[in-house]
């Protein structure tokens, strides 16, 4: 029996956050088994970033044929899952919803336009995916510098290709895939500057397992076609700079001391992807540094149940949050689907061991890729007047000065400098600042403390919040800090 008679009733059995491959796969299996599922996603349609715009492109048929051909079979492969997702009518899909809070008791705060509110479910599946690794280099805030994922979004959902001189810098499969997609659309990059070296790939060979062979062959195919097309390629790039006054005009790249300058109108950068930890961290997850990935991950139990960090929380009781897909562990689309199905099997308490085996197998290729294409653009820490915090325009020298003066707590530096206090809430500077501090202290990087709302929430939306828990609107304490439980 609930401790209070006016406790709000759950809105669903499961709330799934993210309608990418993991979220779609989980919600289809859960809904087909009779569970009431609400799916929230920021974007206007299902698919996540990997299958972004796929539904609309398929609906256009022959008109979008050339685009679909250029995007390739791995993109079109999402069609079956999207169809299954749309075809499962009992799924309550709510696109255009930004989630700004998740609590471990199953409460989820949402924002759509200027409306906001809370929903509740017995379980929450966090399938909010990945983001591209932040890459602070001189000039990275100039108009015309974009991530590979951003340009892919323009391709998939904007149906557009770049014009003029396009330079690509970074590492990882996405770099080759994007360059090959450009090639098919008749766009010839003026430079493909790679940070990885042959010795990275050779060193990664012992990690190669049979399930990785198809993706390896695919990658080799992209590379061979790029070489055939005569696209200029540099390897072992140790540093880059974007040059320009009000927009990018050239890419400078260093290989050791050797400098090359290439004029360009668009500079596409990519340094691999890392899990989005914002929602998990806001929900109180224990955040761990993964040295191999050079990124943070939320701690989870074997089957994906989020592990809360010790300390105060707004709510008590068991953790009702499960993590899935790239948000839990980077693996790409196929692994994310297996991950989504596994989370559903766990929640339905059926056949977890089979789905766990499929998930493990689907994650195997990643071990090779991680070693073969290690972080490059972000490998060395920024210095001097290179921007670290894009929002507040704080450079490395200023932060370095604070660290050397003895400020070695990341939250203290946030308070002193405003680094991480802009609208992106530290998404693009936290890892850099934390690594700068770690370089001094020798301890593992620690992120900013994160409290909800983890995304900007208009005051008008907050004032008219729907679905509030009446228990939490009563003033029961004058402390401004969260307390464990509500019965204080």
């Amino acid at each position: 029996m609930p401790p209070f008679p006016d406790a709000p009733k759950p809105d669903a059995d499961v709330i799934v956050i993210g309608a990418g491959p993991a979220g779609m796969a989980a919600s289809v299996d859960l809904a087909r088994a009779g569970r009431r599922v609400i799916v929230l996603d920021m974007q206007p349609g299902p698919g996540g970033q990997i299958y972004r715009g796929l539904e609309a492109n398929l609906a256009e048929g022959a008109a979008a044929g050339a685009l679909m051909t250029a995007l390739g079979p791995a993109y079109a492969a999402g069609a079956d899952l999207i169809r299954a997702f749309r075809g499962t009518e009992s799924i309550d899909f709510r696109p255009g919803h930004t989630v700004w809070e998740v609590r471990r008791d199953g409460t989820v705060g949402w924002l759509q336009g200027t409306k906001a509110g809370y929903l509740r479910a017995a379980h929450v599946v966090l399938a909010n995916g990945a983001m591209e690794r932040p890459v602070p280099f001189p000039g990275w805030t100039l108009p015309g510098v974009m991530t590979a994922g951003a340009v892919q979004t323009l391709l998939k959902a904007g149906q557009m290709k770049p014009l003029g001189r396009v330079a690509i810098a970074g590492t990882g499969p996405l770099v080759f895939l994007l360059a090959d997609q450009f090639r098919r659309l008749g766009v010839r990059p003026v430079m493909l500057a790679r940070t990885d070296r042959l010795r990275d790939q050779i060193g990664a060979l012992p990690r190669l397992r049979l399930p990785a062979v198809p993706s390896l062959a695919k990658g080799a195919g992209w590379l061979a076609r790029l070489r055939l097309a005569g696209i200029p390629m540099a390897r072992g790039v140790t540093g880059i700079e974007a040059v320009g006054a009000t927009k990018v005009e050239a890419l400078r790249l260093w290989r050791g001391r050797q400098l090359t300058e290439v004029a360009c109108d668009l500079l596409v950068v990519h340094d691999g992807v890392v899990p989005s930890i914002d929602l998990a961290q806001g929900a109180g997850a224990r955040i761990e540094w993964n040295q191999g990935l050079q990124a943070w991950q939320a701690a989870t139990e074997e089957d994906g149940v989020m592990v809360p960090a010790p300390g105060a929380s707004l709510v008590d009781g068991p953790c009702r949050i499960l993590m899935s897909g790239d948000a839990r562990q980077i693996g790409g689309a196929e692994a994310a689907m297996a991950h989504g199905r596994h989370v559903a099997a766990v929640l339905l308490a059926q056949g977890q061991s089979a789905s766990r085996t499929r998930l493990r197998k689907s994650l195997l290729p990643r071990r090779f890729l991680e070693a073969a294409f290690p972080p490059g653009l972000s490998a060395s820490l920024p210095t001097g007047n290179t921007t670290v915090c894009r929002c507040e325009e704080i450079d490395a020298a200023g932060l370095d000065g604070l660290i050397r003066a003895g400020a070695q707590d990341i939250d203290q530096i946030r308070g002193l400098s405003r680094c991480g206090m802009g609208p992106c809430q530290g998404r693009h500077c936290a890892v850099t600042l934390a690594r700068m501090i770690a370089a001094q202290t020798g301890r593992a990087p620690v992120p900013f403390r994160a409290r909800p709302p983890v995304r900007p929430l208009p005051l008008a939306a907050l004032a008219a919040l729907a679905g509030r828990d009446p228990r939490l609107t009563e003033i029961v304490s004058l402390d401004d800090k969260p307390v464990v439980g509500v019965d204080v």
Partner: protein
Amino acid sequence: MFASVVPIGHPVTIHFDGRPIPAREGETVAACLMRAGVPAFRRTPVSGGPRLPYCMIGHCFDCLVEIEGQGSQQACLVGVAEGMRIRLQNGAAGVGGGA
């Protein structure tokens, strides 16, 4: 900087700083403005420097614009609508929502 791969069939019209821009139904404000080649979505509150979208998936907040008088809207997450009025966001959004 960008050109359509697929012709825009029945465009809707949005306005950026008074300039009419054809948009594809269902696309985001950011995609449409990138195709139109606007030189900046916003000027930063600190240095006044120009910014264009960086990530396009809702993380970087460099695509902030003023939409229908409401400042600090993420152009990469808001869908276009016929007659929508968008302005470059100059610095921080003011009290009352406008830029």
